[in-house]
């Protein structure tokens, strides 16, 4: 289980994440939602150990992750929000580098890389530099790199970004499949329909604070709203969307 306890992050004294507490359990998919700038990616970066928290504690299987960060990183897979990759390397070289850095046995790693490239439809372009890849292909490389070492904890920040319909459907099933095999999965996305379909539990963040943390069914009952979109709009969207869109149209049309 991944536990986030009272985690805060201040940038020049301004809180980006403010006293956030929630947990993600093995066998469950936890959806992490929030509008732009609510602190989702900052939380993700703190969970990966990329960013230090100002206060609070993050525990994985009951142990603070900072106590043995190396061992924790061995068991964690991460797909960042932006597909930043070393674009001078080929897809195959990038994945091979990740396998070496993770100290995976050479032959099984090579077989796994080949299999992942084939299943993600990247095999034909494995020798092309990543600079020549489309956004969706880069996203697939990130996914393959995150899954290569069979992680126990999977942190997915906007994993559907740039994927075509077919690949998105595969990923959706894959996330459910991995959760059913006992992985801890925390994923953040703006695609509420997808989140609603695959998440067992929802955490909604607004201005750095948690405004909802429960299963979708219970949130529906509690808020008397039929969809996640309705729940999210009520909890995290401050604007009157129709009024704003009317204003924009008025502004453009003069």
């Amino acid at each position, binding site marked *: 289980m991944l536990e986030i306890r009272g985690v805060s992050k201040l940038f020049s004294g301004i809180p980006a994440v403010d006293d956030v507490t929630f947990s993600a359990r093995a066998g469950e998919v936890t959806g992490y939602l929030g509008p732009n700038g609510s602190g989702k990616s900052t939380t993700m970066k703190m969970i990966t150990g990329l960013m230090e928290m100002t206060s609070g504690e993050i525990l994985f299987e009951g142990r603070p992750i900072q106590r043995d960060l*190396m061992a924790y*990183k061995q068991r964690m897979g991460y797909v960042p929000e932006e597909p930043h990759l070393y674009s001078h390397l080929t897809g195959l070289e990038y994945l091979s580098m990740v396998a070496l850095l993770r100290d995976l046995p050479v032959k099984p790693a090579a077989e796994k890389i080949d299999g992942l490239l084939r299943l993600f439809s990247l095999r034909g372009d494995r020798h092309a530099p990543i600079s020549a890849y489309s956004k969706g292909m880069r996203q697939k490389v990130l996914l393959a790199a995150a899954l290569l070492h069979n992680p126990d904890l999977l942190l997915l920040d906007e994993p559907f970004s740039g994927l075509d319909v077919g690949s998105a459907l595969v990923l959706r099933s894959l996330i459910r499949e991995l959760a059913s095999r006992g992985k801890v999965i925390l994923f953040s996305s703006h695609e509420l329909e997808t989140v609603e379909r695959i998440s067992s539990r929802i955490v909604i963040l607004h201005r750095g604070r948690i405004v909802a943390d429960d299963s979708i069914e219970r949130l529906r009952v509690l808020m008397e709203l039929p969809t996640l979109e309705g729940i999210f709009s009520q909890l995290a969207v401050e604007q009157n969307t129709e009024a704003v869109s009317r204003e924009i149209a008025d502004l453009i049309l003069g």
Partner: protein
Amino acid sequence: MTKLQFRVLYREFLFRVVDLELLAPQGDIAKLLGQFGAVLIFLSFALSMRAMFVGANSLPLQTLRAVLWERENTLISTTMLVVGLFAVLSWDSAFLNRRDVMVLAPLPVRARTLFFAKIAALATALSLTILALNALTGLAWSIVFAGANSGFADVLRSLAAYWSTMIAAGVFILCGVLGLHGLAAQLPRRRYLRVSALLQMAAFCLFLSVYFLQPAPVSVKALGALESRHLLEWLPTYWFFGLFQVLNGSVPAEIQTTILSLARRAEFGLAIAVLTAGTAFLLSYFRTLRKIVEEPDIMPGAGGIHWLPRFGNSVTTAIVHFSIRTLMRSRQHRVILAFYLGVGFAIVILFMQAPAPRQQALSASVSVAGLLASVLMLACAVAGARMVFTMPLQLKANWIFRVMPLPGPRGLLNAIRRSLLVLSVVPVWAVSAVALLWIWPWRIVAGHLVALALFGSILADVSLSGFQKIPFTCSYLPGAGYRGFLTVWSTLFVTVTAVGFERRALDSGAGYALMIAILCAAAACARWWSVARANSPESALLFEEAETPAIFALDLHRDGRLSA
């Protein structure tokens, strides 16, 4: 609208004319260009100093002529070298690239506005470079070149000849490079990308080699000799030397034919270079822009060798592979390394031109220049590789190293050291082995190669002491390059002393054994030192050169003042 667009684009292109990623990814653009200009003006000051000490009235005509010709040739070739290096550094921004097209093409901007803005930016950058480099020399030397008893009109003529020649030489080099680059851009995209990288390196090496290897114009007799005429006809610096003599009206009657022929070559060369650059720009106007947009996003898989050997454990292998691939594929990093090697090469050439002392012993077959060449190139290669290691490739992609379960600086020391050895020491050592075995007896070469390997090991350890970064991943602060230069110059001093010692040691087996023993001890000490520094408690892997300050300044010093 078009004028405003032109001004906006002109400014944008002018500030991007030198590849900033190459020089200082984190640097302040205005500060960087200011530093660049200051270096050129300092160079101009240094070159102009000698003008005050030319005894025009006291020297015999032949000697004075040799001094002045040597200076004229140096000034012309320095201008051509600096403009050439500028053309190499601004290689990627010379023409509109894919990013320009993708950003600007959807906007209502005419293609001709883009191109005129680009040409104007290049012309401005060229003018400023020539102006900064010749700001002081142009004045000081023009007076000297006008002659001892010259009047105001002669000085004016000399001034006009000087500036016309320098501008013509600069335009010739820049247009030549642009023309070649632009014509290569007409090749299929994949082929162009490969050829372009090779052309850039070739141009860089050519400029440096010609600058250091060309003969100096020593006398009327030498210039007029048939064999030297054939050589001079192929050296553009001499074409413009001839042009200057013609414009300045200082052609000696004895070699009038030679000088006129050189001047004619300068005129033809300039015309051809301008024509080629113009054609290249027109072609990119009509053809390349469309081609860039029509290029498929995904290029077909590249062929070639993808296999690399293992270099130790998994993490070490990953980092060495990453370093090799980055250096092989990043043009910016290769150019910087080539610059260091070029500096080494130039110093070696200078030593080779110096007369060697006569020796009777075993070492008679071994020249100091030969020993120095391998040792100095090794030092420059290590300094260059160490320098490029500090320059990042894609900072935003570094997260992958940060989320990996990597050991600290101590665990990575071997990986970083092997990367440096593989990319600098091993290639220079291997080339030296082949070259020296060709010219020297194998026993001497074997001994020298052992010493060279030990020297490489010492340099690697000393240069990596306190280097707590994975190569090409840490952000770069301008100024690190100066440390690299200092390393080269301090190493040069040590190298020259050590090579002299090695040459003397060649005459006795015991002396050579003692030298190897000293080197072994020094190598062990250097290794111990670098490991100890990596083991220190405050040692941590760095991805940011400048850490976020613990205390933020509030800048309240103006509080309470009334604004005017």
